[in-house]
């Protein structure tokens, strides 16, 4: 009955749309809140009722990237006029930018470095987990492995314990081998977390790829490796993209281990942002600004892979 809809179907449809709409509002509110707060002047961030209409400003971002201290005395008019626009904003907030005494250079807050650490660690561990996971899954999928089911269960079982349980022993082990506060340390950890997940997801995808494709390539004179790269990999890309998004989000968001294992050099954004609460009244606008920037890479990454992700989520259901 294409085109003809009963009123019951119509109402069912409307209710479904309304439900989705409500769910969407509930889910998007925190994101709106963070975004709004990131552009608010400090005195409007915590008003009750919340301020909805305000003139957005970038002072939270200026503060996020600089080291500041409380103003003891108001700056003189001359000092104020001599300062660049972004420094004036900090003055307006009752703080001043800390500068190097000799060179006069602005001291950075360290957020940029943390952000860079986050990117390095999350991207590297994602690449490692996805590539290792794909190869492992291919092996399990295509070759007879003695005790295959037991191995797969073992791989899965590494996810059964909440990772934090092993935080203290890991910390002690890392201290002995000198992996504390290093990029490599966190990369290894996150890769290990994500690997079991990657193996399981990728096994599902690779099982779906008919092995006839590779066999045809083998008969055509290609080696097993060439067949894997030329035939299997292009077919598995969708699955790899979906897996990569999940792995990236996990690594990007990880908080507990980052807090314990890193202090300065390799610290990622998640433990750094709350450390900005510091002493005295927390400056929520700065925290919101940090969080806002922190959301962007995941959003971009997911957006870029959205087509693969959509196909990936359906787990090959679209494939004939």
């Amino acid at each position, binding site marked *: 009955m294409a085109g003809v809809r009963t009123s019951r179907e119509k109402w069912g449809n409307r209710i479904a749309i309304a439900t989705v709409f409500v769910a969407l509002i509930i889910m998007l509110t925190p994101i709106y809140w963070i975004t709004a707060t990131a552009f608010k002047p400090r005195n409007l961030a915590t008003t009750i009722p919340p301020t909805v209409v305000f003139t957005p400003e970038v002072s939270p971002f200026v503060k996020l990237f600089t080291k500041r201290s409380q103003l003891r005395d108001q700056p003189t008019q001359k000092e104020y006029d001599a300062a660049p626009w972004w420094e004036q904003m900090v003055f307006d907030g009752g703080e001043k930018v800390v500068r190097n005494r000799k060179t006069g250079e602005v001291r950075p807050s360290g957020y940029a470095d943390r952000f860079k650490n986050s990117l390095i660690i999350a991207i590297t561990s994602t690449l490692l987990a996805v590539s290792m996971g794909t190869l492992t899954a291919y092996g399990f999928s295509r070759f007879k492995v003695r005790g295959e089911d037991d191995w797969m269960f073992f791989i899965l079982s590494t996810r059964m314990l909440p990772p934090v349980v092993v935080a203290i022993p890991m910390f002690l082990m890392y201290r002995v081998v000198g992996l504390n506060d290093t990029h490599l340390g966190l990369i290894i950890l996150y890769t290990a977390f994500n690997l079991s997940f990657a193996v399981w997801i990728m096994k599902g995808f690779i099982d779906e790829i*008919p092995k*006839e*494709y590779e*066999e*045809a*390539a*083998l*008969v*055509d*004179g*290609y*080696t097993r490796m*060439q067949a894997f790269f*030329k*035939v299997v990999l*292009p*077919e598995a890309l969708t699955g790899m993209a979906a897996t990569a998004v999940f792995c990236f989000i996990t690594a990007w968001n990880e908080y507990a281990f980052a807090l314990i294992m890193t202090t300065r050099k390799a610290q990622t954004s998640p433990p750094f942002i709350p450390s900005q609460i510091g002493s005295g009244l927390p400056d929520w606008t700065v925290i919101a600004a940090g969080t806002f920037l922190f959301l962007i890479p995941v959003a971009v990454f997911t957006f870029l892979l959205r087509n693969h992700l959509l196909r990936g989520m359906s787990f090959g259901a679209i494939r004939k």
Partner: protein
Amino acid sequence: MADIALQGISKKFGPNTAMRNVDIDVKDGEFFVLLGQTGAGKTTTLRIIAGLEKPDAGTVMIEGQDATAWNAAERDVALVLQQYSLYPRLTVRGNLEFPLKSRTHNLTADEIKERVERAAETLQITPLLDRKVEKLSGGEMQRVSIGRAIVRKPRVFLMDEPLSALDANLRDVLRVELKKLHQELGATFVFVTHDQVEAMSMGDKIGVLDRGKLLQVGTPNDIYAKPINTFVARSVGTPPMNLIDGMIKAGTAVLDVGGHALPLANPVGSDGQKIRFGIRPEDVVIAADAPAEAKVFDIENHGVIKILTLDLGGVHVHATVSAQMKISIDDTVRFGWKPEKVLYFDPANGRNLALT
């Protein structure tokens, strides 16, 4: 171009035996058909020839050399599968080029182009060359698969039920084309099928497989006229050969049901011996003066012929008669057989008594 020999090949998959001590000899330029039901071991046989499976025991000889340890690439064979053998991401041209681009071939871009175009011409798929594989119909896909095999100029073509996923009309067309291709190329073909019509119409030689055992190898005529046992007898011909139990008595066949006595030309076996008589439906004669009587149970009109199912006290016997014959269900008819066409099988093990 090459001859292939399998010697004493056995293969097990876990508890399942796929092949039991199989010997096959395929001559250079021969169109060899492996006929068998699902699970008979046809595909395994093909995969062992291709080098995709290793046999548990036995030797694979290609051109007289022991090729058992060679991998798929070294054997230089081409494989056409029922489906899935084309890469969905590539165009037809991409698929045809793919085998030529492997390092073992070492061809220049011009040579590749020329070979692809010649193959496309042979198979009449030139207009499809730049089409995406996903957009092709089943028959076109299978043509491209065959094209992928012929661009390589392999020693042997292996085909695993390449036609069974296609609809009936297309199957007929491609069957003829494949046969023609075989003649043009003069190459060795090993063709696997469960379809006896394909086997009979295409094969120079047919090998009948049953549960991992090669029962008989012979020309289609041999297989049809001189089957080694009842299994082979019933695996070719539609409707299948009638098997009727009875006994030889004074040079005639006395059937267990009804006690009809039918003439025999040159009986195999002694008087009083229990025999399973085999007679093809086209050799059953319906005539007013025939020796036995039966009721017509069913009639299938095929246009040129009618297939009658006769009921002999619970045993059904098929007979092919002219479509012009006026007959209806539940009529009583008299029937007999052509005595010289009767085959004699041992009721205990099904073996053809004339061949043992």
